[in-house]
């Protein structure tokens, strides 16, 4: 049978970002997958070497829009690891609150998008409606809906006051009931189960081979979570548990994410209890970064973020290595996609919650193998502008 090649990307409505998967198909079945990356590569690791230590927090924030708190936390952890310092207790709680709120909004975002990919737009709209108040809370706490700029080496930039805590509690309570409903809908819907159960299964061995992390690993029964294994911020002071499932299919990944939302709500509520009606320092001023190297980790929404920094005592890092969770999660598609159908590839890739901005921190294929046109680019632009003018006049 003749194989057909289906390009998935670079600009596929499935992905928010440009990314290119070439599916070698036999009818509707996928027999091989190639991954072409680099459409999003911006060279952040190199740019980081030209910025001041404090500026780098803003730079890493812009690695990825959804993990815009995870990377700064991991980076700050790395620098603090290099310095060997601790941060004030209140700052720890605030970091935890922001991190968990980010996790909540990202998991909801994922659930909505997953619905969207399945052509289930009602789920998409409802979930995104629930997510909106969270973004309002973020705006209230940090001043921006995304890109929060809360983290600073040695602490946090802004404090949280008691009025904000009250408003936050209210939002979380409504969110909890909404999330309960959503979880029920997902767990019980027979059509969703038909689409998700036993699709894109990853075994424990696959997880180890590719080093996958986060909800992807936890859905396959690999019990890892940096928040518990190597606690930072306030995670060691708080009572919560790691969610794991056994099957490793897309359905389990969805369940892990939805159940994690409840844990996040629990964590935030406990943190709020500890900082309410209290005052305290939020920043340990850091003046100089001595020579040395440090590693910082953070359990981001998609898994472990890993930052390695090296200093030679000057005002900017001489090497800054960033490993986003998607960098190890996405390659698992090689195991999970092959043998599935084209329709499933969409949801399998979505199940990983890929984030290519993260993956290519540091970064025309003619998808239709069309013949090259012998017209120069300026010619085309000129022609099209003329036509636009003409149409505007008429």
């Amino acid at each position: 049978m003749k194989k057909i090649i289906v390009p998935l990307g670079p600009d596929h409505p499935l992905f928010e970002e440009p990314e290119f998967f070439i599916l070698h198909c036999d009818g509707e079945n996928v027999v091989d997958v190639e991954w072409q990356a680099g459409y999003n590569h911006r060279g952040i690791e190199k740019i980081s070497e030209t910025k001041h230590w404090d500026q780098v927090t803003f730079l890493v924030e812009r690695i990825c829009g959804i993990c815009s708190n995870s990377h700064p936390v991991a980076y700050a952890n790395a620098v603090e690891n290099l310095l060997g310092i601790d941060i004030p207790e209140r700052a720890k709680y605030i970091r935890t609150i922001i991190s968990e709120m980010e996790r909540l909004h990202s998991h909801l975002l994922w659930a909505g998008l997953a619905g969207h990919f399945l052509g289930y737009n009602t789920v998409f709209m409802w979930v995104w409606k629930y997510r909106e108040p969270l973004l309002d809370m973020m705006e209230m706490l940090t001043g921006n809906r995304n890109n929060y700029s809360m983290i600073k080496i040695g602490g946090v930039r802004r404090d949280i006051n008691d009025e904000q805590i009250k408003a936050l509690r209210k939002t979380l309570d409504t969110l909890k009931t909404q999330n309960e409903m959503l979880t029920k809908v997902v767990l019980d819907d027979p059509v969703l189960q038909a689409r998700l159960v036993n699709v894109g299964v990853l075994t424990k061995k696959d997880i180890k081979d590719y080093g996958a992390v986060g909800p992807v690993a936890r859905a396959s029964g690999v019990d890892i979570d940096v928040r518990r294994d190597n606690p930072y911020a306030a995670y060691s002071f708080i009572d919560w548990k790691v969610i794991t499932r056994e099957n490793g299919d897309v359905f389990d990944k969805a369940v892990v994410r939805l159940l994690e939302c409840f844990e996040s709500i629990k964590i935030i509520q406990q943190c709020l209890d500890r900082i309410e009606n209290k005052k305290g320092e939020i920043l340990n001023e850091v003046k100089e970064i001595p020579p040395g190297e440090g590693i910082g980790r953070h359990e981001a929404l998609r898994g472990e973020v890993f930052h390695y920094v090296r200093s030679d005592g000057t005002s900017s890092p001489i090497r800054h290595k960033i490993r986003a969770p998607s960098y190890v999660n996405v390659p698992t598609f090689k195991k999970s996609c092959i043998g599935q159908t084209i329709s499933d590839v969409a949801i399998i890739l979505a199940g990983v919650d890929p984030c290519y901005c993260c993956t290519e921190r540091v970064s025309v294929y003619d998808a239709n193998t069309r013949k090259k046109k012998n017209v120069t680019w300026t010619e085309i632009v000129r022609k099209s502008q003329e036509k636009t003018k003409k149409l505007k006049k008429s």
Partner: protein
Amino acid sequence: MNILNVVLLSIVWSIFLIAAGLLILGVERKITARLQWRVGPPWWQNFTDIIKLSAKETSIPERANRFIFIFAPIVSFLGALAAGVIIIFSLLYGISFRGDLITVIFLLTLPYSGLILGGSSSGNALASVGSSRALKLTLACELPFIASLVLIILKSNLSTSIYNIVNMQKNTGINFFSVSGFIAFFVAFWGSIGKLGIVPFDLAEADTEIAGGALFEYSGILLGFFKLTKAVLFIVVPLLLIASFFGSFNVLAWILEYLVIFLLLIIVKNTNPRLRIDQSLRFFWKVIIILIIASFVFMKI
């Protein structure tokens, strides 16, 4: 009625079909939006879309087969329109001929054929995946749809004229209220969801999987023709169901029955995710086939 009148009336009714189809699609979008806590577009949105598309440039890909690429949307549009006009003529004016039901069934396969041809002629991988899905789907959903209509023909003493079928139900009772008729209606309803290409069977266009699928390369007025086809089908297919299963000669009843079917369609659309192609095929070949056989077994009841 002389030939001139017929021509004039068909033009008038064609325009009505287009307008009503666009309107009902607008209503559909509005209701969907309300279900999703949104305001939604105004009711005339689809008219604006079509006018806009007609003003846009139509680009034809270099690798495409020009002839098929251009004619596929036109043929599917005309097929849907002709089917609609035939049904309306036999319902309203009693102008009917032997075998017009068969003609309508044939004409209603044209829209999908157009989609398949158009998709596969455009020389794009995503479009060809879309049309191969459309092909599989049409094979799956056409059979139950036709089979349920064959049952109606059998029930109406082998009459293949829509007028006769409607007329006969006056004497023998409405088909929908017999056991076999009810089952056949259920079958035809799912078949028509497949024919209309709405969720859960919108695999051929699946925006989030294969980016518009068979329509990927279409732009401008040619895309507009596909949109119009869909709008006309939204009127014609339920109308055919009404004629063969409810059959009355009362306009008010028709409108009510239409609205009921329309509501059912919307409910199905908004409470289901898109099915995978093999799941859709399994649904049609296993579940629906059993129902068809059941309806034939209970034919006399």
